[in-house]
């Protein structure tokens, strides 16, 4: 059995890796690094675009809200003026009627 196991050790002795192996590993490591660099650059630029776009969107929303509030105030003022005009007309009519009676 020991002889057979020795034969197996001989058969499975370590082999020499190809001469370019080490260089290929370093090239793969470098490619992975630059790949990761490209990913982070794209991720950073993407995040910047999202931040700028959401800034514009929030500004637009704020402007819309202000415009709507202004228009609501204008409408309220118009109603108030109309009521005032109506009331003044009534008062004027009353005054005129009482003057004519006298």
């Amino acid at each position, binding site marked *: 059995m020991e002889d057979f196991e020795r034969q197996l050790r*001989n*058969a499975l*002795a370590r*082999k*020499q890796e190809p001469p370019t*192996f*080490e260089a*290929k*590993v370093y090239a793969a490591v470098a490619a*992975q690094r630059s790949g990761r660099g490209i990913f982070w650059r794209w991720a950073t630029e993407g995040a910047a675009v999202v931040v700028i776009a959401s800034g514009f969107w929030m500004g637009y929303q704020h402007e819309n809200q202000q415009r709507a509030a202004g228009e609501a105030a204008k409408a309220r003022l118009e109603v108030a003026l109309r009521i005032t005009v109506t009331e003044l007309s009534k008062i004027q009519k009353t005054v005129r009627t009482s003057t004519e009676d006298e």
Partner: protein
Amino acid sequence: MTFAEVLRANQSMVFSLAFHFLRDPGAAEEVAQDVFLRLHQKFDELEGPRHATFWLRKATSRRAIDYVRKRGSRATIALDDIAEPSSAEQPGDPLLNRRLRQLIATLPEKPRMVMVLRYQEDLMPEEISEILEMPVRTVKSHLQRSLAMLREKIDRSLGDIR
């Protein structure tokens, strides 16, 4: 411990494990490169040269078994056509060595990896059990059955020659 030191000290071990398991020099190189690439990513987590060697043996075994499973029924190189990578020294009978390697290549995945770790790396069943995450009993059983099968086939081949 630097990555370069670990690479230089273990590249022959990693390549040989993959080659003896896959019997395909191109596939073995691909697997070995992938293993070192992963080692580079995990390098900060390693605790020293012994841990690195253990990690490399484990990662190579797993990656080589995965490679065979993914390759599935795709055409494989005929065992006789394989160009043998060089080794520093080639003790024993070259024809017998070649025949033994061919027979080991016919074993199922797990017993084949057990045999490669045992006789290439000279590891004990307990160490193999840790690397392959299987009970020591199973490792010993794989070894016994594979040895019996190989002996029988080698004896039969020698009988045919006589």
